[in-house]
C-alpha cells in the first residue's frame, strides 16, 4: 500500500512465475492487487503470502539479481511506477546447471 496518502492507488495485475508459486502453495499465477509502484505491488504480495518479498528482493533493497520484473516490456526497479491496469511480469532468469 502507498505510504503517500496524496497518491492515488489503483489496481495492477501481477503475473507470477511457476517456480515462485511452488514456494507458496495456493498462490495463483495471476494476482490483481492495489499498487502504484513495483515496490507497493511486492509489499502487497508479501502481505498476502508472507515471505514472498524476500524471495523477490534482497536486503539492499533491490529486486534480486536473477529475478526480472517487466513493466510495459521494460525491465523495472522497485521504484518503477505502475499505471492502472498494468500487467507486471515477474520472471526468473535463465540460469542453472
Amino acid at each position, binding site marked *: 500500500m502507498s505510504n503517500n496518502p496524496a497518491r492515488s492507488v489503483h489496481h495492477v495485475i501481477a503475473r507470477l512465475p511457476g*517456480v*515462485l508459486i*511452488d*514456494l507458496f502453495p495456493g498462490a495463483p499465477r495471476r494476482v490483481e492487487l492495489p499498487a502504484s509502484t513495483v515496490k507497493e505491488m511486492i509489499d502487497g504480495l508479501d502481505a498476502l503470502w*508472507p*515471505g514472498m518479498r*524476500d*524471495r*523477490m528482493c*534482497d*536486503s*539492499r*533493497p533491490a529486486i*534480486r539479481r*536473477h*529475478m526480472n520484473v517487466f513493466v510495459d516490456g521494460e525491465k523495472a526497479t522497485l521504484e518503477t511506477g505502475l499505471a492502472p491496469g498494468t500487467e507486471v511480469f515477474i520472471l*526468473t*532468469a535463465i*540460469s*542453472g546447471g
Partner: protein
Amino acid sequence: MPEKILVLIGTKKGAFIAESDGKRGSWKLRGPFCEHWPMNHVVGDPETGAIYGAGGNEWFGPAVWKSDDLGQTWTHSSEGLAYAAGDEPIKAVWSLAKRNGSLYAGVQPAGLFRSDDGGATWSHIEGLQHHPSRKDWNPGGAGLILHSIVTHPADEEQIWVGISSAGVFYTWDGGKTWEPRNRGTRADFLPEGQNYPEFGQCVHCLVMAPGKPDRLYQQNHCGMYRSDDGGKNWQSIEKGLPSTFGFPAATHPRDPDTLFLLPLNGDSAGRYVPDAKAAVWKTEDAGATWLDERKGLPQENCYAGVLRQAMATDSLEPAGVYFGTSGGSLFASANEGENWSEIAQHLPTILSVETMVVE
C-alpha cells in the same frame, strides 16, 4: 534398538533422506526435497524431531527450510535473515547448529544468526561483524562463508565459528565480543615468514570432542589440528595422514579421542582421494596415530572429493560413519569405519551429511 535412523543429505539440487532401521543393513532413499534448492547443510533436532535445511538459491536468495514430519512437508523462512540495508546481501545459508531451544545459522558473506522460534524468525548476532579484523577477511574458494558453528554443551554464551578463509573465532559472551583462535595453525599460502597470522587461516571444518568441550579438532586447508584449550593453541596432528589437505572432520559420538577424516590429495592436485583410492582415516588416540579404513570403498579410478560438511557419525553402538561425494555417492559404515557399503548413488553433488536417530 531405535525405530529408525535417518541420514540427512544436502545436495546441490535439493535435500534427500536415506532411512534404515537400527540394524543399518538396508536403506531407502527419499527426495529430492526443498524445491531442488542447493542445500548446504541439513540437520536434525532429535529433541523435537524437526529437520532443518540451510539453503541458498540463485533466484530466490537464502532461506532455512524446516520439516516437522521427517521430510514429508516443508516450510521455509528468511524473516530477519538479512544484513542492514545497503550492505552486501546474504547469498546463502551455509551451516546450522541446534543448542537447546536455539538454532544458529552461519551465512555467506560470513555472519551468524540465531532463531529462538524454530527457524521462523531470525536475529543477527552482530558482534562478529564488529571485530576489528572484519574488513580484512577475504573469501576462500567457496566464498566468505561461516561454515562451522560449535556451541558449548554447558554454557550457551560460548560459541566457536569457522570462517574460510578468516579462521576460527570465539565468543564467551553470547556473541557480543569475539577473538580469533588460530595460534599454531598455518597459512602456507601467505608469503614465507608470515605463515602464522592472528587470523586469515583457511579453516575447512571445526568440531568439538564429545564430553570434552575444551578439545577441538579442525581440518584446515593447510594441515590437521587439535586443541585442548578451547582453541587458544593448536597442535598439528597431521603426521601419519596421506595429505595435509581435506575438508570434513567427524567426531565419534562418545569417545573424545576418536576422529574420522577424509584427506584429499592436495589443493592443487585435483582435490580427490589420494591415488584415486577412497579411504576414511581414523584415529583412536586424539591424532597421535592414524589408520586407513577402506574395506568396501572404491580402490581404483575414484576421482571423487568430499566436501566440508559431507561426513558424519551417528549415535548408535557401534557408531555409524557416513560420507557423501562430489559425484553423488553416499557411503556408510555400521561399525565405526571397518566395513563400508554404498547406500545411494547418482545423487547431485553432496554438500552435507548428518544423521538423526528416531526412537
